[in-house]
């Protein structure tokens, strides 16, 4: 149940199976898949001397190289592949497809292969982006999520989602029992289609039976619109929220006073042990660990300074590459963390986040309203942050009779927030308002849950800024205790399974997952032995991308349904 390991295994197998010098050809989809799990230097050690894109047509002819093509079988990449095979630039071709290939496509390849250069055709199901060991993304654009209405899929996105999800199942060797969110038409359609794929590809999914079948839980983002709106304080989530992580890389070009070599940095838990250790720490703890790290670096520097004997020189020369690596890593993380703390100070994130967490977790209408009004009137605060506050307010107090959503929108207008942005409030309520949600998101709908949240409040919170736990936590908690209701989360094939605690759970959130949820999953995995959970989504949201998605909903679909 480690998605990074799974893809790495595919990549290693691909490269080790072909002996001799080789070139690796990728397409636009598989490039990030491979780059997330391996490095160029590790490929070079396995005699893979050339890595190129298949859509790059001016490649030199090198008949002495063998060519490994790792491609997603899309129309486009197949066209490029056919053009490549008509004029082969390399000696032998080993074709690896990241998903199942249609028979007609193979036939076409066979027809084109006049030079008889194809040696192998394989399907390696590495068709998703492995971000953390327990987090994967399908890397889709949230703009192309919806079809005709906000309840239906875009056909292309849907096809790719089904293929990607079945690739995840195949690469993890799981034949799951599928459950989905009852209220979400999209989740239901996806779950049914995945089940169809499993039954039609019965031979592929024929794995060794486990005692308890793994569970694939298909959720919908609209059931929990709060999580992507909150300011994040743990390292990975915060970097994504404030700067943005794209395919494991962080673009630092907009950061002031940054060195040239740090314009673009790589954050990968697989290749960077410090990041692996600290990715789920909050900013305060992160400061402490990074101080340790710098101290360690300093002692190394000192020990490298005093070179008095030949033995010292020898040691220095031996340790120097390691030392350079360490220094690069230290400066990378120091630059990132200093940028994060700069942004925290500049955007008044502490103040905003406290209010956000309060809105998300506790019901306190009057003081919340007062605080929001005060913050909206503060000119130093970012427009997006103001909008997010109003959105959270609207979500929490949507059902309250005398709520002040209208007046808050007016207030936004008065302080000069554009109408386009304030239109997000009705759009969000349309997309993920009370009627669209299935679960008791704010724990205020029944007497029992009110009592529970009151008890939680009595206990007190450790950290005001990270007190919110995503709704996913409650759902998974119930699932693991085998108490998740069949009526709310029905099984696809309708059959009643014996209630037993699941061991392996794959959660897929259609409409995008977040790093806060990923952090929760990682904690769950490490704290409860015997249970392994993997989280995935169409994409990984930060507040910006989620608001774009909501905006698109507002512009594209709201008028249609009103008419």
């Amino acid at each position: 149940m480690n998605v990074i390991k799974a893809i790495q295994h595919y990549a290693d197998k691909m490269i080790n199976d072909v002996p001799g010098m080789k070139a690796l050809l990728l397409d636009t989809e598989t490039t990030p898949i491979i780059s997330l799990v391996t490095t160029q230097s590790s490929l070079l050690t396995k005699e893979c001397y050339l890595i190129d894109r298949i859509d790059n047509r001016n490649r030199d002819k090198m008949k002495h190289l063998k060519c490994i093509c790792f491609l997603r079988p899309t129309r486009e990449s197949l066209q490029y592949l056919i053009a490549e095979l008509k004029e082969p630039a390399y000696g032998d071709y080993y074709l690896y497809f990241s998903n199942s290939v249609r028979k007609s496509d193979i036939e076409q390849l066979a027809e084109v292969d006049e030079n008889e250069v194809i040696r192998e055709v394989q399907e390696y199901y590495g068709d998703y982006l492995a971000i953390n060991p327990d987090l994967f993304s399908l890397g889709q654009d949230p703009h192309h999520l919806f079809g005709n209405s906000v309840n239906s899929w875009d056909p292309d996105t849907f096809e790719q989602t089904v293929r990607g999800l079945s690739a995840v199942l195949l690469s993890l060797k799981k034949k799951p029992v599928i459950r989905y969110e009852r209220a979400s038409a999209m989740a239901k359609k996806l779950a049914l289609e995945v089940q169809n794929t499993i039954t039609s590809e019965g031979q592929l999914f024929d794995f060794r039976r486990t005692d308890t079948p793994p569970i694939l839980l298909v959720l919908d983002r609209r059931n929990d619109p709060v999580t992507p709106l909150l300011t994040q304080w743990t390292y990975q989530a915060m970097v994504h929220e404030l700067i943005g992580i794209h395919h494991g890389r962080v673009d630092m070009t907009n950061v002031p006073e940054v060195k040239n070599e740090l314009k673009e940095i790589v954050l990968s838990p697989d290749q960077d042990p410090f990041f692996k250790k600290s990715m789920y720490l909050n900013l305060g703890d992160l400061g402490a660990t990074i101080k340790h790290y710098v101290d360690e670096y300093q002692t190394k520097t000192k020990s490298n300074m005093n070179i008095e004997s030949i033995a010292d020189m020898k040691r220095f020369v031996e340790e120097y590459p390691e030392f350079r690596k360490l220094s690069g890593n230290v400066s990378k993380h120091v630059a990132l963390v200093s940028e994060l703390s700069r942004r925290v100070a500049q955007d008044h994130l502490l103040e905003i986040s406290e209010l956000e967490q309060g809105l998300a977790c506790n019901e306190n209408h009057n003081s919340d309203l007062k605080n929001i009004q005060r913050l909206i009137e503060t000119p130093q605060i970012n427009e997006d942050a103001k909008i997010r506050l109003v959105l959270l307010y609207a979500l929490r107090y949507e059902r309250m009779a005398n709520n002040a959503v209208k007046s808050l929108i007016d207030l936004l207008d008065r302080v000069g927030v554009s109408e386009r942005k304030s239109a997000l409030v009705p759009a969000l309520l349309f997309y993920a308002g009370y009627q669209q949600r299935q679960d008791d998101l704010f724990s205020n709908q029944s007497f029992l849950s009110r009592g529970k949240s009151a008890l939680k409040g009595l206990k007190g919170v450790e950290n005001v800024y990270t007190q919110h736990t995503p709704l996913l936590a409650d759902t998974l908690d119930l699932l693991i205790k085998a108490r998740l209701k069949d009526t709310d989360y029905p099984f696809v094939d309708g059959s009643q399974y014996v209630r037993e605690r699941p061991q392996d759970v794959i959660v897929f959130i259609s409409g995008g997952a977040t790093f806060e949820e990923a952090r929760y999953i990682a904690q769950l995995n490490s704290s409860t032995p015997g249970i392994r959970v993997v989280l995935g989504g169409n994409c990984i949201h930060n507040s910006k991308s989620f608001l774009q998605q909501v905006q698109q909903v507002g512009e594209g679909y709201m008028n249609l349904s009103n008419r």
Partner: protein
Amino acid sequence: MNFKDRTSEFYNLVERIKKRGKVSVPTTKKQPMATSRSEFARMAAQLGRSLASTSQKLEQLTTQDITKLNNQLKILQSVSKSKSSSKQAADHTNSVIVSLQAKLADTSLGFKDVLESEVDIKQQQSYPVPSNSPQPRRRVTANQQSTQDTYESPQSLGIPMISQQQQQQVMIEQQDQRIETRSNAMETVESTIAELGSIFQQLATMVAEQRETIQRIDQNTDDIEMNVLGAQNQLMKYYSNISSNRSFIIKVFVTIILLFLLFSLF
């Protein structure tokens, strides 16, 4: 980490497409083929006839015919190569040639067998059966001869007589030596067999020893099974105990609450 190998499928498709490509090649060269094929057939028929005659001649142990036939076959092959164009015709010529070759090979093999058997027979005749006839009797006859010789020696007095006797003595010595080496070999064989016997005996004792430990292991597994069953029984008992406790607690609580409500309301 599952994957699916579709290489064979791909190769099958390639094969199929290749075949399709061959079939679709236009068959325009058919008419010139007809004459050449009849010529070919004629030659093949001739060859077949001559082959038949060769098999007859074989009895007269003629080797030259085979080489000649071989040459003729080669010529036939070259003819077919120079003329072959369409696939089916080429197949046909090929199969004819191959069958002819096979026949030729058969006949030559038969010839060889005959030769070999003859050679064997000759060899058996030439060697004076040293193994088949029992040795001791020979020695007896030799002795008899020698005694006869000694008896006749005063009568004959010829030198050749003495030389014959000496010769026979040498023969006897040689035979003795041979017998001695044989007996030695027999002894070594006997000793190795005895050694083997002792080894097998050792093995048997070892196996017997193993039996005891295996029996002990068997007993232990039986014990384990019993223990596990006992543990399960205890667990089940405990579980039923707990569940009954739970229901009891719930009942007590319900009654307490009911009483409390009763008292507080009235």
